[in-house]
């Protein structure tokens, strides 16, 4: 009896929470399908379904171009991050050397640093090089490590038993060999998670593109495009919500594909009901 009640209770809470999470998205979609006039009223359900709103978004604003820019930014930054941060994390997790712990603290310092702290001199630096107006100031630093990803990867790698590393070393493998042939295959879920988080972070980045590509519309990302979507004089709510839906679709699609690697990672942990 008690377990039946608790089952109902838990499921009721879960459903209530699910509604809370999903309702805003539902309303956004519904508004995206409304006519311009109706979007300004109290109505919750569109009278007619204006699917053409989605097409109109592309006409009003070069969303496709922004999408391309966002994709370019996220993919390049993530690739750069993986290239640099996996070896760095390995160096912090599996190589023993003096000053290792203090270097790890530096990673944490970098991770916690709000970007606005260094925005001014970074901007000056990139302006002197002549790369402002492009996305490169946001991409290039990732070739030298991304603090958050290093932290995450390092925590993963630390959990891989040292015995695997040692036996590979005893077999005569170079450190690079150990990393590529032993560690990377074992750390796939962690690497996938780091890549996913990096992709999301760059996809949703607003402050960075605002600072560096603000003046050059050709290089805007989706976040800038959406924020500027209001026309000169007002917010057209139906179109703005349609644009919002369009901006969210790629990440949702990505999530559904990447979900598997998430689940893989959780499964690989071993026993759990």
């Amino acid at each position, binding site marked *: 009896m008690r377990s039946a009640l608790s089952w109902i209770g*838990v499921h009721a809470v879960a459903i209530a*929470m*699910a509604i809370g*999470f*999903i309702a*805003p*998205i539902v*309303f*956004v979609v519904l508004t995206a399908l409304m006519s311009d006039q109706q979007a300004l009223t109290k109505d919750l359900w569109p009278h007619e379904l204006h699917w053409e709103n989605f097409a109109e978004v592309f006409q009003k604003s070069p969303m496709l171009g922004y999408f391309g820019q966002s994709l370019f930014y996220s993919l390049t930054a993530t690739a750069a991050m993986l290239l640099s941060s996996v*070896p*760095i994390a*390995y*160096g912090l997790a599996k*190589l*023993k050397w003096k000053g290792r*712990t203090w*270097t790890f*603290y530096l*990673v944490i*310092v*970098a*991770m*916690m*640093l*709000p970007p*606005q*702290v*260094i925005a*001014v*001199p970074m901007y000056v*630096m990139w*302006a002197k090089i002549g790369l402002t107006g492009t996305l490169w100031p946001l991409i290039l*630093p990732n*070739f030298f490590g991304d603090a958050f990803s*290093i932290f995450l990867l390092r925590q*993963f790698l*630390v959990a891989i*038993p040292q015995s*695997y590393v*040692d036996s590979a*070393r005893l077999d005569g493998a170079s450190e690079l060999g150990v990393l590529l042939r032993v560690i990377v295959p074992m750390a796939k*879920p*962690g690497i996938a*998670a780091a890549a996913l988080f990096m992709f999301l972070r760059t*996809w949703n980045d*607003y*402050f960075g593109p605002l600072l560096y590509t603000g003046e050059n519309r050709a290089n805007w990302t989706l*976040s800038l495009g*959406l*924020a500027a979507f*209001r026309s000169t004089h007002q917010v057209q709510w139906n179109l703005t919500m349609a644009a*919002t839906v369009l*901006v969210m679709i790629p990440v949702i699609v990505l*999530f559904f594909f990447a979900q598997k690697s998430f*689940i893989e*990672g*959780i499964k*690989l*942990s071993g026993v*759990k009901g």
Partner: protein
Amino acid sequence: MSVQNLSTAASLPGTPPGGSAARAPRRGAGRAARRNRWTVLAFMSPWIVGFGVFIAYPLLATVFYSFTSYDLINDPVFVGLRNYVFMFTQDPLVWVAIRNTAFLVVAITVGRVVYGLLAALVLTKIKRGSGVFRTLFYLPALAPPVAAALAFVFLFNPGTGPVNQFLALFGVKGPLWFNDPALAKPTLTILALWASGEIMVVLLASLLDVPAEYHEAAALDGAGAMRRFWHITLPSISPVLLFAVINSIIVGLQYFTEAVVAGAVASGSSDAVGNIASLGYPDNSTLTFPMWLYEQGFHSFNMGYASTMAIVLFVVSAVFTIILVRQLRATGATEEE
């Protein structure tokens, strides 16, 4: 090997799989040591450059600029401590911004962690369809901040938004949400809760990793659900919990996008997002510290003063960094096995 191994690395008793680690070759073995040093350098070199060029140098430069007046068009002019004096004695909006950011740091951290933990706990109890629920819970976290802020301003519109209409069904007169100086930040907090899926997923993974035997054994000993939660679950997930707390504090300290967009749209201003007229609407209640920094530096041509503010922001984040590092050392999460 995944997220929950943060916990195995830290505080669970018992040996990690594979037995105790074989010792690495002793250092000081001449050629081996030199090779080791080169290897380390090779692996760590990107970070050395990265930290030096993109973290250390800008920090030092910011310190330098904080003592200047700099409009970024002409060369910086040295002004000594004037910016600091101004900030601490003559700029009332800086203190408003500090209070706002402090509120958001606390509210978002407590909110996200508690709500995320609650959602994760609920998910652990669901057997069938847990995947569906998990997806639904996590989906909002994927929403880009600009989109989420726009959506929420629309939803919480006092006159036409669904939220107030829903409340009207119960005869409750909905408040002004984003248009009320006392409620704007709490409404932003609700937005942060809605998007707390990232925390939830990480906590969920960690909760699932708590070995079932522990719970079973404790239950056999007569421990109730609350005691089991307090003495078994919480300690097991504490490293991940710490991660969640620190992550939320970072989010709070950097809070910029949602506040800017919400203020601009809620004020009905037709100007570009971030225009000074709508900054911090309503009544400077959504003016966060990073926003004021950006405004001073990139709108008002006060780069020097913005750098001064940046130094203060750095000091605060450094304090939290030190706390985190201390905690990690205490729980042994930074030690090698």
